């Protein structure tokens, strides 16, 4: 039982543009009290899959004033396990209730033999894996009745059996599954560095027509490799790669992700303004 009757609630239109922020429970009060001029919020789907409680109650209020996107980690699209239809039903309910602009998940597996590891694990870039994952994406899209955005991973390894590079794989997968892409520029930079590949070269492989959203976040430099923590400001080389991306594919709705050591809302707004300035500068 919420204070607001869902049937009486009116949401603002769903379309997104500009630079959004990840919605985090620490900031509900700030957002609802001050109504900051943020064009949209991204919501972590799994945090709202219960049938009641404070999280849904707050999201209901936020959604009245802001468009949202739903971003999940639970589909396990890269796993050889069958799709989890209970999970997809919950996601479908969320979609129906909150009318997101986009729904996204990752190129990764998080489970095997129904054992969930809750971490985005790497797939080999082989044609067999590509066909398997494309089939799962297509089945999920069919079940949900909409196209998904698939996000490129932060990888810490490449398999010896890989038949193609990360972005050759993603480009071919998107084509085969006819899905959209969520381009995480930080992930692309982290993966390229960790795999000894050239980020600018990967950028040229991106099927720009399929990219509907961009993510930016901060990594941690562990000397031997880059670690995708989402706990830092966006680093200078990622800002540069972001500018290069916008020049190459044009402006896209962009999200600042910050999930660990979450700073004040004001600090997040600052980060969003930097991205806005880049978008404005390159559009001029």
């Amino acid at each position, binding site marked *: 039982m919420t204070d607001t009757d869902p049937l009486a609630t009116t949401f603002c239109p769903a379309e997104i543009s500009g630079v959004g922020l990840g919605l985090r429970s620490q900031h509900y009060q700030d957002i609802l009290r001050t109504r900051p001029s943020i064009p949209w919020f991204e919501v972590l789907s799994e945090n709202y899959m219960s049938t*009641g409680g404070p999280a849904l109650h707050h999201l209901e209020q936020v959604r009245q004033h802001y468009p949202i996107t739903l971003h999940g980690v639970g589909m396990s699209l890269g796993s050889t396990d069958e799709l989890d239809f209970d999970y997809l039903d919950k996601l479908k309910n969320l979609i129906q209730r909150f009318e997101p602009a986009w729904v996204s998940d990752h190129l990764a597996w998080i489970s095997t033999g129904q054992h969930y*590891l809750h971490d985005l694990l790497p797939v*080999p870039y082989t044609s067999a894996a590509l066909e398997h994952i494309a089939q799962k994406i297509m089945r999920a899209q069919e079940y949900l009745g909409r196209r998904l955005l698939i996000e490129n991973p932060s990888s*810490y390894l490449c398999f*010896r*059996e890989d038949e193609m590079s990360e972005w050759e794989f993603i480009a071919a997968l998107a084509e085969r599954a006819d899905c959209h892409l969520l381009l995480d520029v930080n992930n692309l930079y982290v993966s390229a560095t960790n795999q000894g590949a050239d980020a600018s070269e990967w950028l040229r492989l991106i099927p720009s027509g399929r990219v509907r959203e961009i993510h930016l976040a901060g990594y941690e430099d562990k000397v*031997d490799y880059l*670690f995708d923590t989402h706990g830092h400001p966006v680093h200078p080389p990622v800002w540069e790669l972001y500018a290069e991306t916008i020049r190459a594919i044009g402006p896209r709705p962009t999200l600042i992700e910050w999930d660990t050591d979450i700073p004040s809302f004001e600090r997040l707004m600052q980060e969003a303004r930097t991205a806005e300035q880049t978008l404005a500068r390159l559009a001029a």
Partner: protein
Amino acid sequence: MTELEELQQLFRDAMFGDKIALSAVGNLVRPVGGLSGEEHVRIYRQTVLGTLTRSLGNIFAVTRRLVGEQFFDAMAARYIPDAPSRSPDLADYGESFPQFIREFAPAAELPYLGDVALLEWHWHRAFHAADEPPLDSEALRAAAAEDASRIVFRLPASATLLESRFPIRRIWQINQPDYHGSDQLSLDDGGERLIVWRRLANELRIDELDDDTWQLLNGIAKGQTLEQLGDGANISLLPRCAERGWLGGFDTL
């Protein structure tokens, strides 16, 4: 089994401490920069354990505070390999952790720790429980007028009854980050009987129950009819329970 499935099962085993699997996956990975194949795989081991440990640390925040970060993380590292998660929702993970803590020998010095952890688990579940309308007192009056013996009350969907021989509510309270009162506490203060639940969408509560109310609510939790309740419990407390929100609803047989 396909090659991909085999790889994923091997990878999973490598994540949870199987050294042979770790070395086998390491051999499938190309060394890059200064890292060997196995070192690349170990990065994932760290993120998998890190994610699960962090999630347990958030749910069992008081437990973590009581034993310290290092002890907690070591305890989680022992728990995780033998407690596979079966749900895509990370919030479902950790139900068996309180029982594990009770049997975890290095924590035996803190005999109340498992009970505190159980309180935290039910608090966490109450947060995510289904919304429900308050007890319909009008409908209840009508049902009582017809045949009161056929009424079967329900606890709120979010509610759990919890009993400990330690003052776990008090321990929980003084270990909240925003707590400012006295932190004096004696384990001899005696046990507690509690109801952990959520009022409406937002208000999470831990209420202490007196013996009579405890007995009554336990009868209700067992699904006893009003008639059966009247046998052992003090049903004159029902209006007060309804007022406090401890009755979620009722059915008629």
